[in-house]
């Protein structure tokens, strides 16, 4: 099944070629969790502060479905 992964800010630096507004389209097996995708993309889990699936908060063990839009944000805190 296919999912879209939207990466923001410093998380973009971990994935070669990733750009804001240009989601990664991944083919993943049924049963894939958010945590599986984070690992597959090589993102440090502690740098992922916000996990949203189709605009709703989910945890790392959330199982993804066909067509899901996964967005991952680091903690942005400067001022």
């Amino acid at each position, binding site marked *: 099944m296919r999912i879209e992964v*939207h990466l923001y800010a410093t998380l973009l630096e971990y994935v070669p070629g990733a750009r804001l507004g240009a989601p990664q389209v991944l083919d993943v097996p049924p049963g894939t969790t958010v945590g599986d995708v984070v690992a597959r993309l090589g993102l440090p889990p502690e*740098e992922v502060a916000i996990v949203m699936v189709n605009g709703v908060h989910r945890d790392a063990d959330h199982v993804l479905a066909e067509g899901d839009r996964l967005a991952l944000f680091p903690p942005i*805190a400067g001022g």
Partner: protein
Amino acid sequence: MAGRYDRNLALPGFGGAGQARLAAARVLVVGAGGLGSAVLYYLAAAGVGAIGIVEGDTVTLPNLQRQILYATADLGRAKAEAARERLLALNPEIHVEVAGTRLDEKTAPGLVAAYDLVVDATDNIPARLALNAACVAAGKPWVHGAVCTYTGQVTTFVPGGPCYCCLYRFPKPQARPLRGVLGPVPGAVGALQAAEVIKYLTGLGELLVGRLLVLEVLPARCAVFTYERNPSCPVCGSGQQGTSA
């Protein structure tokens, strides 16, 4: 001679009523650094009647790369006092109140109590958690902004809508925070925060409620991401301490 607020008054939908709302408003800006410099300048220029500043630091040389409220002659001065002087030089028609302290869990409820709306121009997550808790408890709207390197984000929280902890469920500081920030990034994010304040006060347009605007200046891209209230949020939802879920 045209008046100070001529360009506000000429805006579609703004008019004298909009200007009167700004003049009657009390807005607290927490932090007078990179974000706060832009927010404070624009709110003062726009004629927000009473502006509070919470800032406990003094001006240092590395601040001057982006904190445009301050000049080299201000080095070593309390930021809150230097900011107040600069804002009143820009617009002597407003009131500027300063609190030379840091916002934390203990001080936040008292600091936000006297204001209609709060702007987050802080530089750390613990202060934002304290601000969120105080604003949710007091039913105050607040405008969040944050920056890092070449990126920044803005969103607005209002009573009944999603709160900071609906967005960041378990916010922790970055393990390896990056110190670098391009000066125009807090400038742009702070200007957007000021626009949210003016929109809230005048009732114009659509606020960034449930929407996180993300700005990335290197690829020159902007994205708006929607998010929802978390019904079991420990701060604003059924997961609150002292309430039965």
